[in-house]
């Protein structure tokens, strides 16, 4: 097919691509000049090494520390100490750590249960970094028994409470629009609270406020790690939700169908419960059994309300007449089961970085779901039979307020 315009278009495209690449090439050239090998253009200041001890495990006759180079320059681990007393030790796979590389330091040490220990690492330039553990406790053995115990905790915290909450569905079904607006707003309120709660958790973790036991080194960007992870998660879910709604033909206004909304709420809450599982698993893993038990009780009570959040969209007039029990159970599992996964992760391979990232993903997901629900409420209020044109109306405002208050009240039990 001879198309006289094709060649020109191709040339035009090539030119556009080149135009896009030219500024980039300049940036690369400048970076190479300033910071490339052999460059002495920038020799200002002294880069200070930084090492963070991310995790400390107490195993049989040995203390194990995961150390990560969180500074701007490569370092070598030279000396290990316990309570500021030098100990023979080993570092695996080796002590040379490039930026962000981690290694395992093994210190044979006859530690005593429930006593505090400070583990110190000295690098090749003589700088010592340390981390304190308030009470030594044997690390969880990654065997079937422990996995079963953690899974049980996850079921108590995630699956059962959410399922119980779903039992409110028949109560809410066939409600008048105003009441349903109240319950949907209540859901939004719950979600806003959960989102803020998870955000606070992620921020304190990422900015090292949790400090002694679980903080993440500032080298990972602190609050910005949370902001970016949460935003990406929000955008991804927002895009996916919109695309699915359009493909389903939906209502044409980009709003999700009731079942899709319930599914999204379940998924968002699932990510949140992953975070709760992490908290419980980590508490058990760090030997804080009392804290673990408290978390289990508190989260269980708290998560019953999450079932309401999932049930609310299904109860509306646009929703299915009858929701198959299996579908309901699947929704409940989607929301609750991640707590099991979280408990395993928290107990067996806790790292502050992965915990902060997962919590942040949960934050984005929850806020996105809250957004979907609030739009729905707004449409209902404006729509036929709706309470009025103003948003939020009395019912929506009351629902939001009640949702947040309930969550606050149940959360302070933890």
């Amino acid at each position: 097919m001879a198309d006289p315009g094709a060649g020109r278009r191709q040339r035009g495209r090539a030119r556009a691509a080149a135009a896009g690449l030219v500024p980039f090439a300049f940036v690369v050239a400048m970076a190479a000049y300033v910071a490339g090998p052999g460059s002495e253009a920038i020799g200002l200041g002294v880069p200070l090494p930084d090492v963070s001890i991310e995790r400390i495990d107490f195993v049989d006759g040995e203390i194990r520390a995961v150390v990560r180079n969180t500074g701007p320059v490569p370092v070598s681990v030279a000396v290990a100490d316990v309570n500021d007393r030098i100990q023979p030790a080993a570092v695996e796979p080796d002590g040379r750590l490039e930026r962000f590389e981690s290694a395992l330091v093994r210190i044979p040490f006859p530690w005593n249960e429930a006593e505090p220990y400070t583990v110190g690492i000295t690098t090749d330039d003589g700088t010592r970094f340390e981390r304190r553990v308030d009470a030594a406790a044997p690390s969880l053995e990654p065997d079937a028994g422990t996995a079963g115990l953690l899974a049980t905790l996850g079921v108590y915290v995630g699956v059962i409470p959410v399922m119980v909450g779903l039992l409110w569905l028949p109560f809410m079904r066939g409600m008048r629009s105003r009441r349903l607006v109240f319950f949907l707003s209540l859901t939004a309120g719950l979600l806003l609270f959960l989102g803020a709660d998870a955000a606070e958790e992620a921020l304190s973790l990422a900015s090292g406020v949790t400090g002694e036991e679980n903080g993440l080194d500032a080298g990972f960007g602190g609050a910005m790690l949370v902001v970016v992870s949460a935003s990406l998660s929000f955008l991804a879910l927002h895009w996916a939700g919109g695309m699915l709604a359009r493909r389903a033909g939906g209502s044409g206004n980009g709003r999700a169908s009731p079942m899709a909304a319930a599914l999204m709420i379940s998924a968002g809450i699932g990510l949140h419960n992953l975070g709760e599982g992490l908290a419980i698993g980590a508490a058990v893993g760090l030997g804080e059994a009392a804290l673990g038990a408290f978390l289990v009780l508190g989260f269980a009570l708290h998560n019953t309300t999450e079932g309401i959040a999932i049930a609310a969209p299904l109860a509306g007039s646009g929703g299915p007449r009858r929701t198959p029990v299996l579908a309901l159970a699947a929704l409940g599992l989607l929301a609750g089961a991640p707590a099991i996964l979280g408990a395993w992760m928290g107990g067996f391979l806790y790292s502050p970085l992965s915990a902060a990232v997962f919590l942040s993903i949960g934050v984005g997901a929850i806020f996105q779901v809250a957004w979907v629900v609030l739009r729905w409420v707004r449409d209902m209020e404006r729509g036929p039979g709706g309470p009025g044109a103003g948003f939020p109306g009395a019912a929506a405002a009351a629902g939001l307020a009640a949702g947040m208050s309930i969550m606050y009240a149940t959360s302070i039990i933890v």
Partner: protein
Amino acid sequence: MARPAAGRAMAMALAAAAAAALLLALAPPPGQAQQEDRTFLTHSGAVVRTSGEVLDPMYAVSTVEFDPDAYLREFHYGTVSELPDGTVLREFTIVAEDGLVMEVAPGVFYNVWTFNGTVPGPTIRATEGDLVRIHFVNNGSKEHTLHFHGIHEARFDGVFEPVGPGGGRFTYEWRAEPVGVHPYHCHVMPLEEHIAHGLYGVYIVDPKEGRPPADEMVMVLNGLDTDFDGENNFYAANTVPFHYQHHPVRIQQGELVRVYVVNMVEFDPVNNFHLHGNLYHYYPTGTDTVPSAYTDMVTLSQTERGIMEFSYDYPGRYLFHAHKVEFSEKGWSGVFLVGESGPEYG
């Protein structure tokens, strides 16, 4: 309903897979090793295997740039000549530097300030009444001086006569007195910094009649604050932590041992010296011929020093260390290996 739900499920599966991949990438390395090929000892003697690197300044035999074994029994008597009146003149040259970065413990590098390239500087030794003349050269980047403890004229005190950097010179001179063991060090402000970086050494004045023959050695008790937080990270006898633990000091059963001990630790108010399986006669500052104590423990403040004399009745390995256990567990401990007297030893 089915298609979107399936699509969403797939999207979620993808998200979960991505999250799992991220988690794996961020997860700590596994504790199990593929290849167990190195071993090291714990305090209790247990053997631990590792696939990685051993971090053990205590029991693993290691050497660094500075050799505490050579320093231990190395005495500098200077270039000797005789003045017309019969006085023995001993001339020494001491060069200060402050730019060296040296491996002070296995794998730990520190900017040491040195006299003649080592910490401690050379052990200067003279006999009571000798004329000691020290040609001091400052090749450092800061002002330095030599301040000797002992008796001398004010102008040779090394306090108000800073010697400029980059080759500055000064000649110190005095009659060697009193008999004993004394420290010398730089006396430029900030003094703590100049001493803590390593500008010190030992000066011994022997009595005219001499001391009974003995296996003589010098131990400077010092510390290194490698991260400049005002606390020592390492302690040692003769700079290198734990050196005499894995390189025991060999002595002989029944032979008199004389240790010139000088405490140069900064930041910590006291240090001490405890000997195992034995007691020593202690001569504070070495100025008197009568010992002040027969003990296995003396406490030493800054620049406090003395002479310890002992001999072992039984062969074997005997620890000596600070009984301030923090110091000994950070490097100030060592072993005397007492060999059986007999022709085969040596």
